[in-house]
C-alpha cells in the first residue's frame, strides 16, 4: 500500500511538469497583456517598463526556465495584479478557505445525496422515489447565481436566522455550503440510486435475504457498501471541483476564497497566478483521487491485495 502511494506521488511530478509547459504555452499564445486595466489601455512605453520589471521582455524559453527554477525553490512568483503579494501568499491565504468551503459542501452533498439515493432505490417508482429524483433534478438545475441570493433573501433578510455574507463563523458557512453542495447532492443522489438498483438485484443480496436477515441489515451492510463504490469514484474530481470551482458562491457570499483567482487570473493575464492555480488544481485532483483509491481499499477488501 505504501509503495502504491509513493509511486502515485512520484507520478505526480511528470504530470505537473507537462501541465506547466502546456499552460505556459497556452497562456502566452492568447493575445492581451497583463498590464492593461479594463478601461485604460496603457501607453506602449509604460507597458514596456512593466514588462521589464517582471522579465516579460525576455524570450519565452528563458521565461519558462526562470519560472520553473523558482517553482523548484518553492517560489511561485509575484502576482502582477496585486504587486505586494506573491502567488505563495495568495494560495496560503485563500486555499484554506476554499478547502473548508469545499469540505462542508461535499459533506452536505453526501448527507443529503446518499439517503435520497438509497430511499429512492428502495422505494423505486413510488412517490418517494419521484420526490427524491425531483429534488435531485432541481438541485442540478438551480444555479448558485439564483440559489445564493434566494437563500440570502429568505434565511438572512426575511427570517433573520443567518448573517448575509462573509466567512468566519459556522452561521456564515451554512448558506454557502448549501449553495455549493446542492448540485453535488443531486449528482450523488442519482448515482447512489442507480448503483443501489444495480446491486439490490444481484444474487448475493437474494442470498442474504434468504438467510433471513432483516431488510435493513441487508440494505445497509450488504447493498449500500457495494453501491457506494461508484459514488466514491467521483468524489475525488467532485471535491477538486468544489475547492476550485467555488468562484460564484464565493462572490455571492463575499468569501475570501481561491475560486476567483482561477477565473480572474486568466482574464487579467496574471501569468504567475494562472500557472500557480493550474498546477495547484492538478495537484489537488491527483491527490484527491489518491485519497479515493485508499478509501476503496478500506471499503472493498479485494482491492487491498490487488497490485
Amino acid at each position, binding site marked *: 500500500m505504501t509503495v502504491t502511494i509513493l509511486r502515485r506521488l512520484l507520478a505526480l511530478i511528470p504530470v505537473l511538469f507537462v501541465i506547466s509547459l502546456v499552460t505556459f504555452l497556452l497562456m502566452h499564445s492568447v*493575445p492581451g497583456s497583463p498590464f492593461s486595466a479594463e478601461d485604460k489601455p496603457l501607453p506602449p*512605453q509604460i507597458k514596456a517598463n512593466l514588462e521589464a520589471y517582471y522579465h516579460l521582455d525576455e524570450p519565452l524559453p528563458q521565461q519558462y526556465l526562470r519560472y520553473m527554477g523558482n517553482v523548484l525553490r518553492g517560489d511561485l512568483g509575484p502576482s502582477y*495584479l496585486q504587486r505586494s503579494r506573491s502567488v505563495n501568499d495568495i494560495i496560503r491565504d485563500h486555499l484554506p478557505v476554499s478547502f473548508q468551503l469545499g469540505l462542508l459542501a461535499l459533506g452536505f452533498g453526501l448527507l443529503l445525496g446518499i439517503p435520497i439515493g438509497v430511499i429512492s432505490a428502495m422505494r423505486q417508482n413510488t412517490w418517494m422515489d419521484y420526490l427524491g429524483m425531483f429534488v435531485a433534478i432541481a438541485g442540478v438545475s438551480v444555479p448558485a447565481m439564483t440559489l445564493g441570493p434566494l437563500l440570502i433573501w429568505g434565511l*438572512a*433578510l426575511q427570517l433573520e436566522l443567518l448573517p448575509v455574507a462573509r466567512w*468566519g463563523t459556522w452561521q456564515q458557512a451554512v448558506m454557502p455550503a448549501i449553495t455549493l453542495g446542492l448540485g453535488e447532492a443531486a449528482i450523488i443522489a442519482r448515482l447512489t440510486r442507480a448503483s443501489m438498483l444495480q446491486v439490490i438485484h444481484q444474487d448475493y443480496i437474494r442470498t442474504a435475504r434468504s438467510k433471513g436477515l432483516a431488510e435493513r441489515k441487508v440494505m445497509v451492510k450488504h447493498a449500500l457498501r457495494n453501491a457506494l463504490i461508484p459514488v466514491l469514484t467521483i468524489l475525488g474530481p467532485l471535491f477538486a471541483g468544489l475547492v476550485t470551482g467555488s468562484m460564484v458562491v464565493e462572490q455571492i457570499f463575499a468569501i*475570501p476564497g481561491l475560486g*476567483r483567482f482561477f477565473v480572474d487570473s486568466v*482574464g*487579467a493575464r496574471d501569468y504567475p497566478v494562472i500557472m500557480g492555480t493550474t498546477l495547484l488544481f492538478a495537484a489537488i485532483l491527483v491527490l484527491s483521487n489518491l485519497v479515493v483509491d485508499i478509501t476503496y481499499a478500506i471499503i472493498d477488501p479485494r482491492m487491498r491485495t490487488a497490485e
Partner: protein
Amino acid sequence: MGFLAAAVLTAGAWSAAQEATLNYPLSQDPYIIDPTANWLYEVPANLFVPLVSYDFVEEQVAPAGAESWTVSEDGTVYTFTIQDDWTWSDGTPVTAQDYANSFRRIADPATGAPMSYRIYVIEGAQAVNQGEEADLDAIGVRALDDRTLEITLVGPASWFLSSLASIGHAIPQWTIDEHGDAWTQPGNIVVNGPYNLVELYPEDMSVLRKHDGYFDADSVEIDVVNLYVVREASTALAMYEEGALDTVNVPATDLERVRADPDLSAQYYNGGSNILYYYIFNVLSEPFDDVLVRQAFAAALDRAGIVDNITKGGEIPARTVTPPGSVGHVPNEVGIGIGYDPERARELLTEAGYPGGEGLATVTLAFNANENNSRIAQAVQQMWQRELGATVELQAVEGAAYSEIAAQGAFSVWRMGWGMDYPDANNIHSEMFTSDVGSPAIVKNDEYDQLIRDAATETDQALREEMYARAETILVQEEAGALPVYWSAQNILTKPHLDRILAPTYQPEFWKWSINGD
C-alpha cells in the same frame, strides 16, 4: 482551525464599541496600496495626502498637503508650501522632500507605475520614465527647504493643479527602502494621512484607524473604518439591509424596489457622477472604416431609450464625451454631437452605399462581461437592426485584457467607460482618444490631436472651452469615432446615523464623514 482564527479576526474588527466606526464596502480588493504604483483607489486615498484636493461642491482646487501655492507668471513653475506641524505615523516630520520622492518614484521606470504618463508634463519626467535619462535628479520637482516644494513644467498647463488631487502623494522613502514592495503591509506601512492601515486580510477586509499625526486630525470624526470586500453589488445591498454596512451603492436591478420601499427610499440619494459610458468604432475594418456608416450608426442610437428603460438610475444621455462638472464639458443643449434621428441614419447609410443595410458587413459589438453592459448592448443591437437593417453580433469578453485586444481592432465596435481622474477635459481626451494613446483601432485626426495638445497648454480658460468644443465636434460628430451613450449617476443608500458627502468625489473621503447618535 482556520475557521477559528477567522472568527477571532472578525471579532477583533468589531471591538472598541465606544469608537465611531464606519462599515464600508469595497467592490474589489485594495490590491495596490502604494499611491505611487497605481491609479488612486479608496484605501491609499485615505492613507496618503496629495498636494491639493478638489472640492466638488465649490468646484475648485483646495489645499491639502500644501497649505498654499504660487504659480510663476509664465505658468511653468509651481511653488507649494507644505502644511506645518505634521508627522508620519512613525513620528518623522512630513517634509517637501517626501513629495519630491513621490514624483521621482512615479517617474522611475523601475517602479513600473502604470499612470506615470500623467506627470510627463513635469520637466524631465518623460525622459526618465522612458529610460532616456537615468538621473532622477533631472525631474523638475525639488524640495527647496523642508516646507517648500517647487515643480517645473515643460510648458504652461492649466489642468495640472487639479490633476495633483489624484497623483503625487507624499511617501515615506525610508520605509520603501527598508521593505521594498511589501512596505504597504500593516506593520511595515508608514502613513501621513487621516488614517492608518492597521489590519489587512486580502479579499476579505481591512481596518483603517485614525492617525493622530495628520495635520488636521482634530477634525477627523470617524475613528475606525472597516472596509469589506464585497464584489457582488446585490450582496452588499443585503448586508446594508442587515445592518452590516452603513452605506452602499444600489445596483440597477434593485432601484425600483428601493425607491418604492418606505424606509429605504428615505435613505436613498440619486445624483450625478463623473463617469462616461461609451462605445468606440473600429476604423481598421468594414464597415466602420467609412465615416458615413459611423455617423449612421450614431444617429440610430436612442440614448433616452437606454437611460429611461434599461439603466433607469438617473443617468444623463451623453452626446459628447467630457462629463459635467469638468472644464471643457459641452452640454447636450449646445447641439454638438449626433442625436437620435433614425430617418437621417438611414439616409447616411444609403449615402454610404448600403441602402436598407444591404451589403453591410456583420458588426461585432463587444463589451466587458457584466449584466448592465449586456442589457445595454442588447438594446443597441435591436436599435441598429431595427433602424438600419444591420446584423449585430454581441460578444461578452471577460477580463482586463479586453481593452487592449479591442484597441488593437478585435471587434467592430466596443464598449468602454471613463471615470475622470481630475476635473478637466484634458484627462479624457489626452488619455483616451488622441493618436498619442497608441490605440490603432481608434480614429485618427490631425486637427483633433493638435487641438488637444494646444488646449493642454492654453492658459485662457474661455479659449480652452472653445477648443474642447471644437475637439468634441471632430471626435463625436465629424469623425464620429467615439459614440458617447450616457454620463453615469450615483445611487446611494446611507443609514440615518451616517453623515457622508454625497457630491461626486473621485474617492470616498472618510475623514470628512461623521457618525452621529451612537
